[in-house]
C-alpha cells in the first residue's frame, strides 16, 4: 500500500523564522504514528502546516496527501480530501449551535465531494448515535460550539466532530493537554474506535501517557525541526525514562503542563 501522507525534506517558516528544517515522514493507511518532542521542536507547527494555516510557509520540500501536493489546497479543500486536525485549543464560536455547526460542516464536505447533502432527520439520528457512543449528553449538541465548555468537554467535542466527519487522515495536536486521567481515557477510547485499515493517524504529544491508551505503530522524536529518532512504541517508554535531554529539551518533565501549553500557544498564535 502506498503512503497516505508523504513528507519529503520539508522546511517551514513561521513569521520568517525557520521552524521545520528538513522533515521526512511517511504514513500509510491504517497506521498510527506518534510525534513526540521537547517544547519548541516544531510539533504544533507541523500540525497547523498540514491543515493549511496561513503564514506557515513551505520554503523547501513537499507534502503529498494521497498523492496531491497539499500546498496547492485551501484548508477547506484539505478537509474535503479527508484531513482532520483535532485542535489543542478548540476554538469557541458563541451563538452557533453545535448541531448546526456539525451539519454545516458535514454537508460542506459532502458537497465538495460531489455527494448529496444529508437530510435533517437522517442527520439527527446519525449525530445522536455518534454522541451516545462517546458518552455525550444530547444537551451538548444544543450548546454553542465549544463556548463555555470545560477543557475535557472541548476535547470530547473534537472527538465528536471526528466521528461525524469520518476523515481519512487524523492529526491530533496535543489532545491530552489539560485532561485528567478519566477525560484522557474517554478521548483515547474515541480515537481508538476510529482506528481502521483505511484511516491513518498522526498523534502529536509531549507525553508518553497518551500513548499508553492509544498504541502507536511508530514513534518519532522531533527535535529542532527534524526527526531525530524513530522507533516502535517502545521508544515512547524510553523517552518517559530519559526525557528529552538528548534532544535539546529539558532533562525530564518539570512544570511540564504549563510549559507545554505556553509553547504551543505561541505557535498557534504565530
Amino acid at each position: 500500500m502506498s503512503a497516505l501522507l508523504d513528507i519529503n525534506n520539508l522546511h517551514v517558516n513561521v513569521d520568517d523564522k525557520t521552524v521545520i528544517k528538513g522533515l521526512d515522514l511517511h504514513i500509510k493507511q491504517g497506521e498510527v504514528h506518534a510525534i513526540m518532542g521537547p517544547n519548541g521542536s516544531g510539533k504544533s507547527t507541523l500540525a497547523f502546516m498540514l491543515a493549511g494555516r496561513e503564514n506557515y510557509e513551505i520554503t523547501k520540500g513537499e507534502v503529498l496527501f494521497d498523492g496531491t501536493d497539499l500546498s496547492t489546497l485551501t484548508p477547506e479543500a484539505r478537509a474535503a480530501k479527508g484531513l482532520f486536525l483535532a485542535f489543542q485549543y478548540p476554538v469557541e464560536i458563541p451563538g452557533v449551535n453545535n448541531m448546526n455547526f456539525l451539519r454545516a460542516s458535514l454537508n460542506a464536505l459532502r458537497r465538495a465531494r460531489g455527494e448529496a447533502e444529508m437530510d435533517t432527520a437522517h442527520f439527527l439520528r446519525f449525530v445522536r448515535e455518534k454522541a451516545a457512543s462517546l458518552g455525550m449528553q444530547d444537551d451538548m449538541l444544543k450548546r454553542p460550539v465549544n463556548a463555555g465548555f470545560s477543557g475535557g468537554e472541548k476535547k470530547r467535542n473534537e472527538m465528536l466532530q471526528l466521528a461525524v466527519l469520518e476523515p481519512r487522515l487524523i492529526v491530533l495536536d496535543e489532545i491530552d493537554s489539560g485532561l485528567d486521567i478519566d477525560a484522557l481515557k474517554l478521548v483515547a477510547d474515541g480515537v481508538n474506535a476510529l482506528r481502521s485499515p483505511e484511516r491513518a493517524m498522526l498523534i502529536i504529544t509531549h507525553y508518553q501517557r497518551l500513548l499508553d491508551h492509544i498504541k502507536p505503530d511508530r514513534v518519532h522524536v522531533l527535535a529542532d525541526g527534524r526527526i531525530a529518532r524513530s522507533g516502535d512504541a517502545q521508544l515512547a517508554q524510553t523517552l518517559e525514562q530519559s526525557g528529552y535531554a538528548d534532544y535539546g529539551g529539558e532533562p525530564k518533565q518539570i512544570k511540564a503542563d504549563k510549559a507545554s501549553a505556553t509553547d504551543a500557544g505561541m505557535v498557534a498564535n504565530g
Partner: protein
Amino acid sequence: MENQTNEIAGQAKQAIKKETVAQVQNLAGEKYKYGFTTDIESEKAPKGLNSDIVRFISAKKDEPEWLLDWRLDAFERWQSMQEPNWAHVHYPPIDYQDLYYYAAPKSMADRPETLDDVDPELLKTYEKLGIPLQEQELLAGVKTRMAVDAVFDSVSVATTFRETLAESGVLFCSFSEAVQQHPELVKKYLGSVVPKSDNYFAALNSAVFSDGSFVYIPPHVRCPMELSTYFRINEANTGQFERTLIIADKGSYVSYLEGCTAPMRDENQLHAAVVELIALEDAEIKYSTVQNWYPGDKEGRGGIYNFVTKRGDCRETRAKISWTQVETGSAVTWKYPSCILRGDDTVGEFYSIAIANNLQQVDSGTKMIHLGKNSSSRIISKGISAGRASNAYRGRVSVHQKADNVRNFTQCDSLLIGDKCAAHTIPYIEARNPSAILEHEATASKISDDQIYYCRQRGLDAEEAVGLIVNGFCREVLQHLPMEFAVEAQKLVSISLEGSIG
C-alpha cells in the same frame, strides 16, 4: 445621565489582513439583486419644495381641508427647524430644493379598482421582487397567508386580501384611501404619537407624506393573517415619504411586516418615513421590518438616506408593542423605533439586527419611555460592522417619577469583521423613580482568524463560516421574526456580508 462606550475595531487582538479588507471592498452593489429599474411613465410634482408643492400633493389625493391645513402647518414648522446633527453619521448637505416630492406611475391616475386594472409593468415589478400580489397561499403547503399593500414611489399600487380581512372587521388599506374612507380614525390618531414637529424629518414627512399603510384592528379581533407593506422607490431624484398608521383597539392583535428595496443609482435618495402605532387596552402589535434599501456601491456612491421616525404608544393598560428590525440596506440609517409605555403593566420590546458593510453608516436604536406603573421593556440589539462601515447603537431608557416598579433589560452586542470598521454603543439611562430595575449589558467581539480557520478546517469556506457565525450572533433576534421571513432574513444577513472576509 450619560454613559458612553466606544469600541473601535483597531483594538481587537488579531487583525484580519489587508487582502481581506480589499475583498470586503469588492463587495459592491452588484450583489444587490433588487437594483433594477422599472421603465414606467410617471407623473411628478415640479422639483423643489414650497407650500404649493404641499398643496399639489394634497390635491392629488383629494384631501379634506383639515389635512391640507395640517400639512401646511407642518411645512411652516419644518422651515424653522434645523436638520439634526447629533447622530454618528456623515453625509453631504441635502439640497431639499433639488428633489421631487411626488412621483406616481401615470397609470395609477385612474385609480384602478382591481388588480386586473393595474399596469402589468407594475405587477411584473413586484413579481420580480418576489412579492405576491395575487391572493395566494404564500408558501406551497403552508397555511399562512399574507396581505400586502404595495407602495410604488408615492402611491399604493394594490392592497390584497382586503375583503377577507373586512370579514373580521380589519381595515387594511393605503393611507390615502383611509383619509377618504375612515377620516374619523385618521383625524383622531394621526400625529398623536409622532407630533408633526417632533423632529426635522418627521416635520418634513408631515408636510409632504405620500402613501403608506393604514391598519385598524377592531376590539378583541386577532388579525387572521400577517399584514405587510412593501415599499419600492423607483424614480430617480425622488424622495419617498410614507406614512403608516396602525391602531390596535382593545384586546386585539396584529402582526405587521414591512420590506423595502430600491434601484441602484449613483445619487443618494431620501426616504423619510413616519410610522405611528397605537395599542389600546390589552392590545398587542408586532411590527417587523426587513429593510433592504440600496446600500450604495463599495465607494459609498449612491444608496438611500433612511431617516425614519417610528414610535409606538402603549396607550392603555397591558398594551404591548414589539419592534423587530433587520436593517441591512441604506447608505445612511437614522432610525429609533420606540415605545411610549403610557399605560400601567405595558410591555415594549425592541429586537434589532443592524448590518453595516463597505461605507454604510448606521445610527439606530430605540427609546423606551416608561410612564406607566409596572411597565417593562426589553432591548436586544445586534450590530454588525464590516468593511469601513460605522455602526452605532443609540438608545434611551427613561423612567418617569410616577412609574413604579419599572423593569428594563438591555443587551447590546457588536460584532466586528475586519479592522477598518467601527461599532459604537451609546445608551442613555434616566431613572426618576427609585423602584426601577434597569439592566444594561454590552459586548463587542470580533470574528477572529482562529474562528474562520477552525471552520475552514472543518470544510466550510470563509464565506459560509462568516454566514454561520453571524447568523449565530443574530439568532436571538431572528427568532422574533414571523416564521415565513426568518429564513429569508437569515439569507439576507449572509448576502449582506458576502465578500467581507478572505
